């Protein structure tokens, strides 16, 4: 497929102009704080007002049916403008793709518009104390009752759950079935009878995630996605979205690499070629990810397990880029600010959405075809 980059220039200009006029200055407080969460929710509402919160979605749900190329362009402009982090990212990047593939028309109509407007912010609830990389070891249950299910158990490391409105996750609905079977994908309220949430301080103390204790939390049938018992397949069918382009788009790294370059010009000793090489590498890799993104959307076939290649790449690029910035800042790198916030956030990248060790296993076995471990 031929990508006509010039055809998207009017769209790019519209997005750029709007952002230039609306991106808050000074930026809102960190979205991992209560105050910042509220400010970021207001920003989502403002974005949605311009139909820019979910450009790739169909118009009826608040989007504008943008092509994948337009979406990439939107992301480039969004991060180049220094616009706020997306507090609704778990919903729009993880839950929405699952709903588009497996949701009923009623679910799409009910769940997507308030997600697009920031009215409902979603938290993911995959991990449990005994189920991290080994997600299929999860033990939280869904028990059949009249008209729905009762959820019980504990979820943890749940991003945005400290302040979010609703959660989504997998629950064991058939304890007799095998590990990957008998799981049910459910959406559930966080402000409900039976839900206890305890914010967990991130490594820098900010309450970026929470643990959730669920005690007979009722979920009606209409909040189950896909068939009961088929939750693993439902979740995995869109896991590639999280590891592929959508969770961390190229635009984010292009903008960060440009800021790094500006920092280098401002602070660096030109004779320090070791730092110069690292700045160059960050820029080169951000460009590589951009080109890879264009390649990916030009392909017609599903990228499947190849998404794991992307996840390893962008998560390691993110850490390296921010480490370079902190090294350029020297003693100032210790102080709170955008680079430090970005650095702390980047440290989670090789862990979430499937650790990079799991991704390397996926790449080795499913892309390269190496033999599966039998031990």
């Amino acid at each position: 497929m031929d990508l006509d980059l010039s055809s998207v220039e009017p769209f790019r200009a519209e997005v750029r102009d709007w952002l230039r006029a609306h991106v808050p200055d000074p930026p809102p407080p960190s979205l991992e704080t209560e105050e910042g969460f509220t400010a970021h929710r207001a920003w989502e509402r403002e974005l949605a007002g311009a139909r820019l919160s979910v450009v790739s979605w169909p118009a009826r749900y608040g989007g504008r049916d943008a092509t994948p190329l337009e979406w990439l362009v939107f992301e480039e402009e969004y991060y180049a403008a220094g616009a706020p982090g997306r507090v609704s990212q778990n919903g729009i990047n993880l839950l929405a793709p699952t709903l588009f593939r497996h949701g009923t028309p009623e679910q799409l109509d009910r769940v997507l518009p308030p997600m697009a407007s920031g009215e409902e912010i979603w938290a993911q609830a995959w991990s449990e104390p005994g189920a991290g990389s080994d997600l299929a070891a999860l033990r939280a249950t869904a028990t059949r009752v009249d008209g729905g299910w009762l959820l019980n158990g504990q979820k943890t490391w749940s991003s945005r759950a400290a302040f979010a409105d609703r959660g989504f996750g997998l629950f064991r609905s058939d304890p007799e079935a095998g590990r990957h079977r008998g799981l049910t994908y459910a959406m559930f309220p966080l402000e409900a009878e039976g839900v206890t949430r305890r914010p967990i301080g991130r490594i820098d103390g900010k309450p970026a995630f929470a643990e959730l204790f669920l005690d007979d939390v009722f979920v009606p049938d209409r909040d189950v996605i896909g068939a009961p018992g088929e939750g693993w397949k439902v979740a995995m069918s869109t896991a590639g979205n999280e590891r592929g382009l959508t969770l961390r788009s190229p635009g984010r790294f292009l903008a960060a690499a440009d800021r790094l370059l500006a920092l280098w010009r401002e602070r660096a000793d030109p004779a320090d070629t070791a730092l110069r090489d690292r700045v160059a590498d960050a820029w080169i890799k951000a460009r590589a990810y951009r080109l890879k993104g264009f390649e990916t959307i030009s392909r017609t076939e599903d990228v499947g397990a190849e998404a794991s290649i992307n996840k390893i790449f962008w998560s390691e690029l993110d850490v390296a880029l921010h480490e370079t910035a902190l090294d350029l800042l020297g003693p100032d790198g210790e102080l709170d600010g955008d680079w430090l916030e970005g650095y702390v956030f980047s440290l989670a990248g090789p862990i979430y959405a499937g650790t990079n060790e799991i991704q390397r296993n996926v790449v080795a076995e499913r892309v390269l075809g190496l033999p599966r471990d039998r031990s």
Partner: protein
Amino acid sequence: MKFVLDAEQRLFGETLDKLLAGAGTPGAVRAWSAGEPEPGLALWRSLAGAGVFALAVPESAGGAGPLPVELVTAFHELGRHAAPGPLAETVAAAVLLDRLGGPGEDRDRGFTEFAAGWLPRIAGGAAVVSLALPPAVPYALDAGVADLVLVVDGDELREAAPGTPMTSLDPARRLCRPAPGAVLATGPEVRRAAAAAYGMGVLACAAQLVGVGRRLLEVTVEYAAARRQFGRPVGEFQAVKHHLADVLVGLEYARPLVHGAALSYGSPDFPRDASAGKAAASEAAYAAARIALQVHGAIGYTDEYDPSLWIRKARALHSAWGSPADHRARVIASLTTG
């Protein structure tokens, strides 16, 4: 813009793959290393017949180019098969000759005739050309078998005598210190033409490196699946898997940079983009070579086992046509002065 190869370009790559696989290329490489170039030169003529060298020669001079995407497709296959000879040097020389001798009223007539004589021969495979562009390319590769050896020194382009081959890491790369002879052209346009030729050499070498890395990954995956230790294929061990996954990640992100540089050929961004591609391709191919050697173990360290052909080439090409550090510096310079 096409960020993936179209059907015709893929077919071209597959055709070259078959040609090189069917031509006993490893044997030709070993003969080349031993100072017997004839099988390699026969391969050169076959490649020319398939249209490889014409890609760098403009139609007006008997070629089909410039077709940079097809050219990187070809050089990827040349790398995958470790094809011998001054391949990048010849296509770079084609650019140099064309820039200095192509149509234009300010051209030196004598040089125009000189270029008009060589370019169709390059396109047709009748001329093997070696080229030194110091300081980044100080030696003339395989000058002893070249029909023409060119050296640029500042504002001067000279024809050169090949000099004696020196011993080097990859015996299939016979590096010579050329002895400059008659001046062919002088003036600032020589410098500009040399810069353009360098860009082409960098692009070709980067594509070759991605191909070298790809082949190393292919043979190493195959070996790791077959080689048994501790009662199981070594490829079952996660330590091995993770090494090979990292090699793939490196190559998968070097390739779009090289393709992207081909797409920007002729634009002001091209030198920067070619350098970005070369830096990434050098690192990715070299990492592939290190891991290939490590996973093969002792047998990979031997001369007689074929992976050595690619392992040596990866290290040699890593620094040929500019080291990764040179190219990173060029990227930064272009970003901070632009």
